[in-house]
């Protein structure tokens, strides 16, 4: 089992969600995040004093998948989130040891 994590531009969330649903993904966790990569932050000016805001708003998506689906889910996210501009984000995959579905107590791949 794998956990696919993605940090993307907030305005791409709807498209990514639809693309994942179309690809058969049945559940995900979405949270608001802040961060920066190569684009760094932006500046704001208050009464002439300039503040450099390092962290910009992002959305983090987490999807649990079976081993065989990790690569394709990654491609779906990249395809839907991409604008080609700096700040588009990252997608990465990490191995998962165990999963349990709380409602039924199922374990392992059955719980995904």
């Amino acid at each position, binding site marked *: 089992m794998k956990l696919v994590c993605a940090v993307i531009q907030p305005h791409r969330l709807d498209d990514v969600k639809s693309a994942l649903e179309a690809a058969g993904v049945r559940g995900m966790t979405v949270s608001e995040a802040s961060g920066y990569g190569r684009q760094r932050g932006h500046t*704001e*000016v*208050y*009464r*002439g004093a*300039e503040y450099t805001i390092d962290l910009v708003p992002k959305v983090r998506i987490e999807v649990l998948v079976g081993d065989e689906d990790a690569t394709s889910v990654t491609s779906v996210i990249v395809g839907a989130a991409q604008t080609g501009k700096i700040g588009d984000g990252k997608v990465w995959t990490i191995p998962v040891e165990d999963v349990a579905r709380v409602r039924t107590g199922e374990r392992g791949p059955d719980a995904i």
Partner: protein
Amino acid sequence: MESALNSGDTAWILTASALVLLMTPGLAFFYGGMVRGKSVLNMMMMSFGAMGIVGVIWVLWGYPMAFGTDIGGFLGNPFDGFGLGNLLAANPEESLPSMAFVAFQATFAIITVALISGAIADRTKFGAWMAFAGIWVTLVYFPIAHWVWAGDGWLFNLGAIDFAGGTVVHINAGVAGLALAIILGKRKGWGKDPMRPHNLPFVMLGAGLLWFGWFGFNAGSALAADNTASVVWVNTMVATCAAMLGWLITEKIRDGKATSLGAASGVVAGLVAITPACSSVSPIGAIIVGVVAGVVCALAVGLKWKLGYDDSLDVVGVHLVGGLTGTLLIGFLATAAAPAGVDGLFYGGGVDQLGKQAIAAFAALGYSLVLTLIIGYAIKMFGGFRVSEEAEVNGIDLAVHGETAYETLGIGRVSTEVKA
């Protein structure tokens, strides 16, 4: 005997008093929005606290000290009329009851004290602030109000024009803010950590309430519902409009963008500058006062970064500089056609009025600076003026008031028991 009471004037002054009183909660929003979320309640409480302490003192010995029996042109006798019991009966000779004037002037004393709090945001002990408010209003505000506005006051008799409080309110509060900012020192992380406004809509709301209330402040200072009040009303409006534009244009040229904080700040800068001048200039003169104040104050708020004092919300840059601008511009732009009936330099009146304006401005500035430094250092020595570094970093709201303004600031707070 037939009563001389003018019900139109009285109704307007009572209304204007309520308008000016609303300015202090408005100021609480204006200031509260500019601080960080962890100290907004304390910021607003300094304004509300000033309403409590100054309102009570005003009734006990404030009004007699400012407008009571004169002692040498410098001060009224606080014991003659203590508690205002002598003003309860109707006086048939008065067109405006003294109590209406008491009400109106109370609100000026309150907001002057509240204005100072913007210089010492995020770090002031609440008890020390309340003590300061009571001592300062007694030793600094009441005397200066007497000098400028009482019939026996020495600046009043000199012929200096301060229609609604450029010296008494704004120069006075502005320089007191500077003194306290120096005494308390910078906030931890000043100039390094971001201290941007946490809620700009609050700032805009506050500026709007201040502008609304300011019509009571300026037009009410006519102490009648008459032509003077009407001229003042229009001058107050148009100077403020012009100042907002002046500030925004300055920002657009300097920083690239016209900001909402700049609009709110320009509004207040214009109101401050037109306050002393609103009875002595024409509407064109008022526009000039406004534009100059908007540009000058937009530039002046940068001074603290160069000079290194943490006047947190720019009481100096807006109130001291704006107050000086308006008070001195009277010397240039006053026209005898306006209600005050005096010509300034540009209208052929020579430098006479300008000299009087400068004396009034710098007398108020010097007296307030010296007395505020003495009071401030005394409070710092006997009990301390500033909260602990831990309280400041974790948020003064929680440390001083035991509250947080927003639920998100109390991460992980779980209620275990409700005590009643």
